[in-house]
């Protein structure tokens, strides 16, 4: 699920920061960790932008299929 992915990736970024700040890596390893961290940060920002801000009604049909209908509060009209 996309949610868990965001959580996991944010955790990856945190891990990368901790590893780099720990300072026990060689230069080469550091670059690798840095690269991973940057990738993770990139992913997280993308995820933030991806989410839509829609509000819809979810209605179940007689055959069990779901359809979505636009929803707006009375006062918004």
């Amino acid at each position, binding site marked *: *699920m*996309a*949610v*868990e992915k*965001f*959580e996991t990736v*944010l955790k990856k*970024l*945190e891990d*990368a*920061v901790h590893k*780099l*700040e720990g*300072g026990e*890596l060689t*230069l*080469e390893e*550091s*670059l690798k960790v*840095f*690269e991973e*961290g*940057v*990738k993770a*940060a*990139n*992913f*997280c*920002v*993308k*995820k*933030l*932008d*991806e*989410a*839509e*801000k*829609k*509000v*819809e*009604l*979810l*209605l*179940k049909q007689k055959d*069990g299929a*779901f359809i*979505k209908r636009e*929803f707006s*509060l*009375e*006062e918004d009209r």
Partner: protein
Amino acid sequence: MDLFTEKRILTVSQLTQLIRGVLEENFEHVWLEGEVSNMAAPASGHLYFTLKDAGAQIRCVVFRASARAMRFKIRNGMGLVLRGRVSVFDQRGEYQFIAEYLEPKGIGALQLAFNQLKEKLAREGLFDELRKKPLPGLPRRIGVVTSATGAAVHDILTVLKRRHAPVEVLIIPVKVQGEGAAREIAAAIRDFNLYREVDVLIVGRGGGSMEDLWAFNEEVVARAISASRIPVVSAVGHEVDFTITDFVADLRAPTPSAAAEMVVRSREELEGELRHLTTRLSSAMGRKLSGARERGEGLIRALKDPSLLVGHLAQRVDDQAARMKGALNGSLRRRRERLDALAHRLQIMNPAVEAERCRERLLILSAGMENAMQRLLDGLREKAAVSGARLHAFSPLATLDRGYCIARRHPAGEIVRDAGLLEQGDRLGLTFRHGSARCVVESADES
């Protein structure tokens, strides 16, 4: 009716019917209180028990239709207040109280039903902390089970709008009070689990009386929440209202607005966290690179030291070292500067896009830097080897070639550098380019 003036013989049925008539006419609408014993609930759905006080007892019946309307369960020893009528059970010749409405004594019927269900579900472990699922940190889709026209949906959407939460909301509209509400709520929770594509559920409604909130105290709702694979946040009524739903849910929010606040972290908050992490990432990398530069300088120093022993060669090595250092420093500084610039842009702009560019450059640069460093070190090693060859030019043999000779005391063998240390008669050995000679000092002048 004149039963006593003339001798009239009645059948048992006739008498029973007469008695029943008298009782039903006179005790048609009675309120009664007492304590329950001998409670029985056969498959027929009717309930039978005896109601008693210190001095008397009476058989009581609750017919199925009335029993079904009851929300709590009758137990032995319970104090009850009943409304009903007195009648006769012909076949057994017993009079009995037919209860149409019952409530527990001292405590409201709803409160009792609430307590009973709460106790039952607690015993089953439905409220255990271990069962509670954690909420997702960044839900993409929130499912809401509430009335489409109520205060709750309005409050939830207002909060989400205010926080600019990057989130999609799906609502399954349900009745939240009255007949059938609990079944609709439970079905909506199950439907969201079938639909699957929501990350968290908010189930609730705005405030109201205990009667209004009752659907959220029904077992069918509690069971649906407990079976949900999607984490459920309960958001029923006001802060002071507690429902069974609150206990079963993975998280209880005091109000629908609070539920929305608990479910989404604001976009600003998440972006701030990302910014903070990327800043730390790049400054840690920066520290790494300057550490590498220092190690490079250390290498240069190590190579430089032996060259100091070798007169003018040291100068050449120094020159080489300076150039190499310059090259290394320059490339590292340029890289540092680029990294700093990128890190700076990472901080003030969209962090990850910049970081991605930075990453690519770093990869290219790191490959380049490795090559450059290797080349420089190889070069330096080569120079050092050439220097070694040049050193031979300064060896004593070469010096003797040019006509110098070495004087040693005989037989001690120590080299004589100062004539002032010699006296007349001292014996010396002289080493020439070819061969040697022994001689005796005739005189020695200090200057």
